[in-house]
């Protein structure tokens, strides 16, 4: 439905102010509504333990979603290579353990993610190749290389210290959530407090204009993919620490969950705007929806369908609201 022509011309009235505020805070309202609905739907829902288990379930996607937020804000659509990064980093971290120790393993795992990200970044940032096509190719290559080394086998953890990275607790909070919090904080500061953060926003908002204004657009896009590789790899390492094993298919589907979280959080998938807190809320909402589907006995098969519909709705809303604002 279109607003009356007079509405378009007039100064923003109360109705429009409310509408604008709703568009900004919609996602937080959705979160509250979901929590209330969950409390009504299941008595087991509203408890510290249930929320900690939701947090643990979505934490790994959370890391990838943080990386994906950078990609989205920079206007580079998506990074489909996340499954290769998650599987590769976890496997490298565990496989290198006997030689370099648990901490060295983690570093090598994260370096693996950075390397995949660098390959993407060089091709997308400097060669200016299409991100979807490039990452479609690198995910196939990356998973193939991983399979080449470990086959369909599991690689198991041998270090109690490594297991602590995700499973241990600090002040009652699982370490994986502490790590996610720290990663999110670092990403948030990087996006909001640094020149690089402004470059990312500017590049996504208008590539040509940013270039003309002296923003190193190519480097920015390249670094964004390296960051996505690093954050996804952190998720892969934490996942390996949590389940004390890693294998080729460990990261299957994570790229879509991460995109879904970014979109549901109300970040634009078309570049120029977005924040880490929004992404975290998106991750949490997806986690709560999953949790509710399990608590209320909706079959697991339906979850992909629900996810796709949610992304479509979120993107649709983004387009609508952008149109209203401009």
């Amino acid at each position, binding site marked *: 439905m279109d607003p009356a022509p007079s509405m378009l011309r007039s100064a923003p009235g109360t109705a429009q102010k409310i509408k604008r505020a709703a568009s900004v805070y919609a996602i937080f309202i959705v979160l509250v509504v979901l929590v209330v609905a969950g409390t009504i739907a299941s008595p087991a829902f509203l408890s510290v333990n249930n929320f900690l288990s939701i947090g643990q379930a979505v934490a790994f996607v959370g890391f990838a979603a943080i990386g994906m937020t950078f990609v989205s804000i920079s206007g580079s*659509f*998506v990074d489909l290579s996340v499954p290769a990064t998650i599987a590769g980093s976890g496997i490298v971290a565990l496989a290198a353990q006997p030689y370099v120790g648990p901490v060295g393993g983690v570093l090598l795992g994260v370096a693996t993610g950075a390397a995949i990200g660098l390959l993407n970044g060089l*091709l997308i940032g400097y*060669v*200016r*190749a*299409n991100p*979807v*096509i*490039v990452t*479609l*190719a*690198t*995910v*196939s*290559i990356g*998973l*193939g*290389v991983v*399979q*080449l080394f470990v086959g369909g086998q599991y690689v198991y953890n041998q270090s109690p210290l490594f297991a602590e990275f995700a499973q241990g607790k600090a002040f009652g909070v699982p370490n994986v959530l502490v790590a996610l919090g720290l990663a999110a904080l670092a990403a948030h500061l990087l996006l909001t407090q640094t020149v690089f953060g402004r470059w990312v926003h500017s590049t996504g908002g208008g*590539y*040509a204009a940013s*270039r*003309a204004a002296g923003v190193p*657009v*190519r480097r920015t896009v390249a670094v964004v993919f390296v960051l996505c590789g690093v954050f996804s790899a952190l998720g892969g390492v934490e996942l390996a620490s949590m389940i004390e094993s890693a294998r080729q298919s460990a990261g299957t589907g994570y790229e*879509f969950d991460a*995109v*879904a979280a970014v*979109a549901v959080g109300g970040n634009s*998938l*078309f570049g120029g705007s977005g924040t880490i807190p929004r992404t975290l809320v998106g991750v949490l909402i997806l986690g709560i929806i999953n949790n509710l589907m399990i608590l209320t006995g909706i*079959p*697991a*098969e*339906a*979850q*992909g*369908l*629900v*996810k*796709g*519909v949610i*992304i*479509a709705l979120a*993107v*649709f809303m983004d*387009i609508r609201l952008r149109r209203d604002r401009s």
Partner: protein
Amino acid sequence: MMNPSRRRLLLENRIYIIFAAVCIAALVLAPEIRDFGVAWNVLAQSSIIGIVAVGLTLVILAGQLDLSVGSVVTLAGVIALGQQGTIGIWPAIGLALLASVAVGCVNGIIVVKAGVNSFIGTLATMIGVQGLAFVVSGGAPTVGIDPAFGALVDTAAIGPLTPRMLVFVAVALAAHFIVTRTAAGRNLLAVGGAPDVARLSGISSSAYQFGALVVCSTLAGIAGVVLGLSLNTGTPLAGQAILLPAVTAVLIGGTSLSGGAGSVLKTFAGVLLLGALGMGMNFRGFPIHVQSIVKGGLLLAVVLLDAFYSTRRTGLLGAVRLNTSGLILPKVKGE
């Protein structure tokens, strides 16, 4: 130095050169291919990806992309096989195709009517349709009621051609004819290549893009039905390995990702190229993951090839750029 127009001609038709090179490589790698029956198998094995790639070519020519094709292959297979027991074979096939058309319409509504970028919009349907296929199948493979019916798909019908190959060849020829010989095809190219000109000429670009998305989805559905029947099984993972080779086939063929330039015939050659490569690797016992590395590498090689040529300056004025594929985003002033 080669003169620019000849170089352009060479670049635009590079697929045929690469195709010849790969065929020779395959013959050397796998002498078994010299056996006619084996070579013929390349066509049979590429048919499913081929049918999908033809649809994808039309969408890409119209300036859009459809990432949901793999999921549609899955959904169609799961419906066509899974519903046989309840409603019969032909109605189940009809239902599968109807579902594919419906997905195409949803894509059209999201991409064309709502104006969502097709990379993101069809990513959503890709996930949603895959989920739907899981719901329909209950997450497990379903077996058809009549294996003999399914076997017909791979039984020679006309000469050595099986229905599976016939569908691919017919679909490719029809699409090629439409694109090159009809007004609708010319309009489609105009919509993808020069949207503003098309609009000012009174061509409804939304209608053509909507149509291309629906046709693409329908073809993916046909591919899914054929695949399902030939295995007599519908599995919720059937379409997993479809998108990458289909996109690779189209792009390696030289159809431009930015729309408006390309041809179904080149895609046909791209499909056979991938098929010959896969066949050669199969004969040499390359494991499946090595093949996925090679296929991913091939796509990257196409990207780099275009990067190399799109930055090369040719012609007297030094300003003509050979951006053949649209894989590389246009240069910004000052870069």
